[in-house]
């Protein structure tokens, strides 16, 4: 602040001392600032002003003027410095601060902020308005700059006149408030409200503003009233406006009428009066308006309209023309003239004037509508449609008018349907005639193609606007509709019924006496088409139309009057001889007389006869026979007419019938072929194709027939298949026959039952066919079914095996059907390939002979192939292939058995089948087991093998066929004894029969022998032992000897490394051969070795047991005894060091046992004494003094150096033992345990040694308590220790320690005011113990001084 001088700080202090301002000082500062500005120090002045303004921001309201002055002063300085923005900113602050800126701010300042606002796009208008308000003050000094005034005023006009409605509304409202008493804001506001269609608001606003307003304001109010339809008030307001006139000396605004005020006032007052029915007054005003401004066309236009209203069309025309004279482009007058022309029926002239008016005012819609109407009236329908179509459609007067005239134009242009739509959309009674007219036009347009629609249109036209023409047209349409239905809908009952009603309706439209023949004929035809010939006249003359003659003949035929029918047909002219219907009628007549060949000819003619067509009226889809026009027609002969499917179906059915009756079926096959070709897909739907196929089948061409017949004609196809299959059978082609017969049965269950029986006979052929097609499941099932009738047939077995193999290989191994397929593969295929017949048949097919050995090799390859697949199957299932249930095992068993059977000539004869070789294995036997007849034959054939009377290879393997144990026997046969035994042992115990156990024993013995031979002693012995344990057979002496040998050899091999196993082996061997002494000796030695080994592992219990077993076998064995002593000592020593009570007891027993073995054994005695001492101490500490004394007495007794009172010595030794234990063994233990030990010692012997030990223990514990601040406990312990002291010195030491404890107690308590008494008591006790102790005395004095 120093740079402002010393006065600055002082001034500001004065200004703001304690928040109070001194006006004088402020004024002084202002003056100082002004002086500085004047003195050319603008910066100082500006800063001073700024500081003042800032300081005064918090000044009381009465100082606001001073702050205003500071701001304006600052602004002036800023302006002087050319800082216009700064000046504006400060002025704007002053403007905001001022309560009435127009009065408080100078004009230049106001102009500044007004200009600033005018540069902004938005914001309040307060500044410009304040400027204008201030400028309006006549005493303004200096007066406002005129240019600035005009600029601000013009800007405000624009703001109020331009922009969005809302902006104008707001601006004009602000202007009215900011410039009271000024006209233009009122006019602007009224205009804004009117433009926003707020007529009520405008009226209310002007009602408030007008009383003091000028003529301009009154005119504006009058105009608003006129717009609101309040004509009396409007007339009064116009009066006042005209009276007040335009104020002099006022600048015009965009809303002022100015010079036009009088003319407009007169015009609109006249119009208002016209609305009020005051024609004369109105006319006077309008004439006055004309006179006031002869160049204004509007008053003349208004006069013309008034004349038009009054019916004075000449005056009207004159005034319209006058208006156009003064203003040729004045549109309303041109429209007035057009209207006058239109009313006079001068459509062309009217159209011209409308066109001219629209050229100037193209958006005037009523004129466009009238223009279109006049164009139409003048014959310009197309141009009228173009003009009117955009205007029509809206639901308002103009839209409806346009719609009507557009309809008229459309009708005139030939678009009756368009006119109908327009007029229907408008509706109204006054349009019914127009609508009916349009319907009539539409109906006439469609009656040719759709008489039904036309009939409906005329029916509606009649209901809307009845006219005779409509009635006649409706009748004709109805009759045509009936005729048309006979062509298109005669087969539909609903259509026939509808037309029947229409004909009834048409009958009513005829006048009495009219000829109804046409109605009658149509009615009869309609009934005939529905199957009722009763209405067809049974008499007809030769002049009648062809169709009437035909229908009469038809009715007669249907009535059974064949002669009459024939007579009528005779009336058919020769030129009609080939018409379809006479031909058909003649065919029927021929049929009636049994002349089938003639009938056939007529039917064929009827199919190809030319139709009575007319290229102009007959549609291409019309049937040349019946005339139906309902669907596709087929042209079999290009030169003839087409036929519908109905005619084709019925005619060809008749052709077929007649041909077959005339035995000329072969003649008509080409006819059916041609029609089948022509009909295409429809040939099957109509059955024509099936007939053609049957004709061909009947002629023997079954393949051609079946090429036509599909499964859509199942009965026909099945019949032909049966025929062809039967012929194939006759030709010996059974497999082809089977295919046909099976398809026939599948297609049609109704085929003759003999077909099913034949298929039964041909089952093998059918299976063969399935196989040829790769349908392995069906083939396999078929062959298996056939096999049941002849289960030993080699060819069938072979076929079953092959198809099963193919099926199994195609199945997923996880498929539930796979195991069965593989079983059949093994059983049937192996049996087949071991049958010589199969190889013979194979050779016969190939034509090559069988060289010696070739069959065996080929069979081997096939079996190997099968084995490889089965091994893969086993591996995939996680099997090795050696298991009894492995596929590999099964196939091996099957081969082994089949080989054996093939060496024999066993035969079975099942049912009607011849006796056949029995070759099988366990798989096939199992699969055929349920076949009762086969089983019976099988049992007979194999009886010698079952009862064991037979010999040879088959007898050897016969057991393999056993359902449960066959696989085990097979393994034994193969020398796989261990596998067999393992499988048998794996059997559940409840499933292991006596037979199974015997087999197990056999397997084990055989395995033992095998192992013995290979010197696998241990394993061999195990096998013998397991066999013996099975318990179903005694081992032979040789086997027993072998077992004993195994034991000896095995144990010797095992002894060094595994003596326990050696023991086991020997014991196993002894079980087998208890009489072999060498085994026992070896066993004793083995136990000793084992005991040593156990002892080395410190497994003393087991070791002692082992050596005990050795001593049982040979109790004099010195080696065993020595081992036992060593084990006892080792074990006892091991247990003695244990802390567990049980171990100590066991140790005591062991020591006693060792001592008993040899009383001179010093080690045993020493060990025993030690464990007795331990036992005595443990008992003493447990409180068991009796047992403690007993243990110690026993120990004393063992002392060779003591011969006194053992009991007394025992107490002493126990006491010392416990003192020593408390001192050493319990050194780290809690005080209580050590105290208890010493207590127990004292109980045995209250000696000085014990009490001294007690005293030391108590003193030590007291010292610990002192350290732990547990002084009272320390005092108690030391008090007791005094009692344990064994001499004076010891006692004095304890007393000093006790006094020390009390001293510490006193010091500790003296620190607490409330424990001073306790402190005095403690120090007193200490002094009692050591009365002369000066330190204690001094301490007591100090404690007492604390008070």
């Amino acid at each position: 602040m120093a740079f402002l001088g010393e006065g600055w700080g002082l001034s500001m202090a004065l200004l703001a001392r304690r928040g109070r301002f001194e006006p004088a000082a402020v004024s002084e500062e202002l003056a100082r600032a002004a002086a500085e500005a004047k003195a050319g120090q603008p910066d100082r002045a500006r800063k001073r002003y700024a500081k003042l303004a800032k300081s005064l921001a918090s000044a009381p309201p009465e100082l606001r003027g001073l702050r205003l002055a500071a701001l304006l002063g600052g602004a002036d300085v800023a302006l002087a410095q050319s800082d216009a923005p700064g000046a504006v900113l400060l002025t704007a602050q002053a403007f905001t601060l001022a309560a009435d800126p127009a009065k408080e701010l100078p004009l230049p300042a106001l102009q500044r902020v007004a200009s600033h606002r005018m540069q902004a796009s938005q914001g309040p208008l307060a500044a410009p308005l304040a400027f204008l308000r201030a400028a309006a003050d006549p005493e303004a000094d200096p007066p406002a700059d005129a240019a600035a005034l005009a600029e601000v005023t013009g800007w405000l006009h624009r703001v109020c006149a331009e922009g969005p409605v809302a902006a104008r509304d707001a601006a004009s409202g602000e202007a009215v408030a900011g410039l009271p008493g000024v006209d233009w804001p009122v006019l602007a506001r009224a205009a804004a409200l009117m433009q926003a269609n707020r007529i009520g608001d405008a009226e209310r606003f002007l009602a408030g503003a007008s009383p003091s307003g000028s003529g301009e304001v009154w005119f504006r109010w009058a105009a608003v009233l006129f717009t609101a339809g309040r004509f009396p008030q409007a007339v009064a307001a116009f009066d006042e406006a005209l009276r007040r006139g335009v104020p002099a000396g006022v600048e015009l605004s965009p809303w002022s009428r100015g010079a036009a005020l009088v003319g407009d006032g007169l015009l609109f007052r006249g119009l208002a009066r016209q609305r009020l029915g005051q024609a004369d007054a109105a006319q006077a005003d309008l004439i006055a308006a004309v006179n006031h401004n002869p160049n204004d066309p509007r008053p003349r236009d208004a006069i013309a309209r008034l004349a038009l209203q009054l019916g004075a069309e000449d005056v009207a025309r004159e005034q319209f023309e006058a208006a156009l004279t003064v203003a040729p482009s004045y549109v309303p007058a041109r429209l007035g003239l057009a209207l006058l022309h239109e009313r006079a029926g001068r459509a062309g002239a009217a159209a011209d004037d409308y066109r001219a008016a629209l050229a100037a005012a193209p958006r005037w819609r009523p004129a466009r509508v009238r223009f279109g109407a006049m164009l139409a009236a003048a014959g310009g329908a197309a141009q009228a449609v173009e003009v009117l179509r955009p205007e029509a459609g809206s639901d308002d007067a103009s839209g409806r008018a346009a719609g009507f005239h557009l309809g008229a134009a459309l009708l005139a242009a030939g678009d009756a349907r368009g006119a109908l739509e327009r007029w229907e959309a408008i509706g109204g009674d006054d349009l019914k005639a127009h609508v009916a007219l349009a319907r009539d036009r539409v109906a006439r347009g469609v009656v040719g193609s759709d008489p039904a629609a036309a009939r409906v249109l005329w029916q509606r036209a009649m209901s809307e606007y009845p006219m005779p023409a409509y009635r006649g047209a409706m009748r004709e349409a109805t009759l045509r509709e009936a005729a048309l239905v006979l062509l298109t809908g005669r087969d539909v009952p609903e259509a026939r019924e509808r037309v029947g009603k229409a004909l009834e309706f048409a009958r009513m439209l005829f006048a009495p006496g009219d000829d109804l023949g046409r109605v009658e004929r149509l009615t009869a035809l309609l009934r005939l088409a529905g199957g009722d010939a009763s209405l067809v006249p049974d008499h007809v003359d030769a002049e009648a139309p062809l169709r009437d003659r035909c229908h009469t003949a038809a009715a007669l035929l249907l009535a059974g009057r064949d002669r009459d029918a024939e007579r009528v047909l005779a009336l058919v002219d020769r030129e009609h001889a080939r018409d379809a219907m006479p031909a058909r009628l003649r065919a029927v007549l021929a049929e009636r007389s049994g002349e089938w060949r003639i009938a056939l000819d007529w039917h064929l003619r009827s199919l190809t006869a030319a139709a009575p067509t007319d290229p102009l009226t007959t549609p291409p889809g019309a049937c040349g026979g019946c005339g139906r026009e309902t669907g596709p027609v087929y042209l079999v002969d290009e030169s003839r007419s087409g036929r519908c499917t109905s005619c084709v179906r019925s005619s060809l059915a008749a052709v077929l019938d007649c041909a077959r009756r005339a035995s000329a079926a072969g003649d008509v096959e080409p006819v059916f072929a041609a029609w089948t070709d022509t009909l295409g897909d429809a040939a099957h739907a109509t059955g024509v194709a099936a007939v053609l196929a049957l004709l061909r089948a009947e002629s023997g061409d079954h393949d051609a027939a079946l090429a036509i017949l599909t499964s859509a004609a199942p009965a026909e196809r099945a019949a032909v298949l049966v025929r062809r299959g039967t012929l194939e059978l006759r030709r010996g082609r059974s497999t082809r026959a089977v295919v046909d017969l099976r398809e026939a049965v599948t297609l049609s269950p109704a085929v003759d039952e003999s077909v099913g029986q034949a298929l039964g006979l041909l089952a093998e052929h059918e299976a063969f066919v399935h196989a040829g097609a790769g349908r392995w499941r069906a083939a396999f099932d078929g062959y298996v079914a056939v096999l049941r009738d002849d289960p030993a047939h080699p060819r069938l077995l072979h076929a079953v095996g092959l198809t099963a193999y193919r099926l199994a290989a195609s199945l997923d191994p996880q498929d539930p059907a796979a195991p069965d397929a593989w079983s059949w593969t093994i059983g049937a295929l192996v049996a087949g390939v071991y049958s010589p017949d199969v190889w013979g048949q194979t050779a016969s097919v190939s034509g090559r002979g069988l060289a010696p050995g070739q069959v065996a090799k080929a069979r081997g390859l096939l079996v190997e192939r099968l084995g490889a697949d089965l091994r893969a199957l086993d591996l995939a299932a996680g099997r090795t292939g050696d298991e009894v249930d492995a596929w590999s095992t099964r196939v091996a068993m099957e081969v082994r058995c089949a080989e054996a059977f093939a060496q024999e000539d066993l035969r079975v004869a099942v049912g009607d089948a011849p006796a056949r070789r029995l070759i099988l294995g366990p798989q096939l036997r199992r699969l055929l087991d349920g076949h009762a007849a086969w089983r019976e034959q099988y049992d007979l054939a194999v009886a010698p093998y079952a009862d064991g009377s037979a010999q040879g290879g088959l007898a050897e393997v016969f057991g393999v066929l056993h359902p449960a144990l066959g696989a085990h026997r097979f393994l034994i046969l193969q020398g796989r004894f261990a596998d067999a035994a393992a499988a048998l042992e794996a059997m559940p115990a409840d499933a292991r029969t006596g037979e199974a156990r015997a087999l197990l024993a056999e397997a084990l013995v055989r395995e033992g022998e095998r192992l013995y031979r290979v010197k696998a002693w241990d394993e061999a012995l195990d096998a013998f032992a397991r066999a013996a344990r099975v318990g179903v057979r005694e081992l032979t002496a040789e086997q027993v000897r072998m077992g004993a040998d195994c034991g000896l050899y095995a144990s010797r091999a095992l002894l060094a490394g595994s003596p326990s196993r050696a023991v086991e082996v020997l014991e196993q061997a002894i079980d087998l051969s208890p009489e072999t002494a060498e085994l026992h000796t070896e066993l004793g030695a083995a136990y000793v070795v084992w005991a040593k080994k156990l002892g080395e592992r410190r497994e003393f219990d087991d070791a002692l047991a082992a050596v005990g077993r050795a001593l049982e076998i040979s109790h004099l064995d010195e080696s065993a005894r020595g081992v036992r002593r060593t084990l006892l000592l080792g074990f006892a020593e091991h247990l003695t060091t244990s802390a567990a009570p049980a171990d100590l007891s066991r140790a005591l027993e062991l020591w006693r046992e060792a001592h008993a073995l040899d009383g001179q054994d010093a080690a045993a005695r020493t060990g025993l004494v030690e464990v007795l001492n331990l036992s005595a101490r443990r008992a003493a500490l447990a409180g068991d003094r009796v047992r403690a004394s007993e243990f110690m007495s026993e120990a004393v007794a063992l002392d060779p150096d003591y011969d006194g009172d053992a009991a007394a010595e025992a107490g002493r030794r126990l006491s010392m033992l416990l003192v020593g234990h408390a001192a050493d063994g319990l050194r780290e233990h809690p005080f209580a345990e050590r105290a208890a030990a010493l207590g127990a010692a004292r109980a045995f012997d209250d000696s000085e040694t014990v009490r001294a030990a007690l005293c030391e223990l108590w003193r030590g514990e007291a010292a610990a308590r002192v350290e732990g601040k547990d002084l009272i406990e320390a005092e108690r312990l030391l008090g007791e220790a005094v009692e344990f002291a064994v001499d004076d010195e010891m006692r004095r030491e304890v007393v000093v320690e006790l006094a020390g404890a009390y001293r510490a107690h006193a010091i500790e308590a003296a620190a607490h005011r409330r424990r001073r008494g306790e402190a005095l008591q403690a120090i007193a006790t200490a002094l009692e113990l050591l009365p002369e102790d000066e330190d204690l005395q001094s301490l007591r004095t100090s404690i007492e001084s604390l008070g």
Partner: protein
Amino acid sequence: MALFEPSPYEVLGLARDAGPDELDAALEAALEAAAGRDVTVERVEAAARVLRDPVRRLELDVQHLPPPEPVDEAAELLAPLLDAELPFPERAEVTAGDLTAVHRRELAADFAELPPPPAGFPGVPERFQADASVLPPFEPPR
């Protein structure tokens, strides 16, 4: 390993009783057809090896299904069916509809002329006639 698939006879297009000469010819033809396609050549040669080996060919032959024997009883059983009627469709009774023919040309001959339509136009309803509404109204200044 599985059974031969396809059969070497099929690979070479040979009959089961084909001899060595036929085999040679078939092999040559098959190799010619398979030239350039290694896999096919390999298969052809493998098939030929099988067929040239008497034992392997015999093993192959026995993998073919034996043809069934003729069954005479089946042919005898079905013989009467050769004389049975084929199922030709039954012919329906002749109906009145079957004997009715109506053609457009013949019907059109009966059609009469339509009566003429009403003459003239019904006129313009009053509500759609011209009036002063076609003149724009006077609008006082807003």
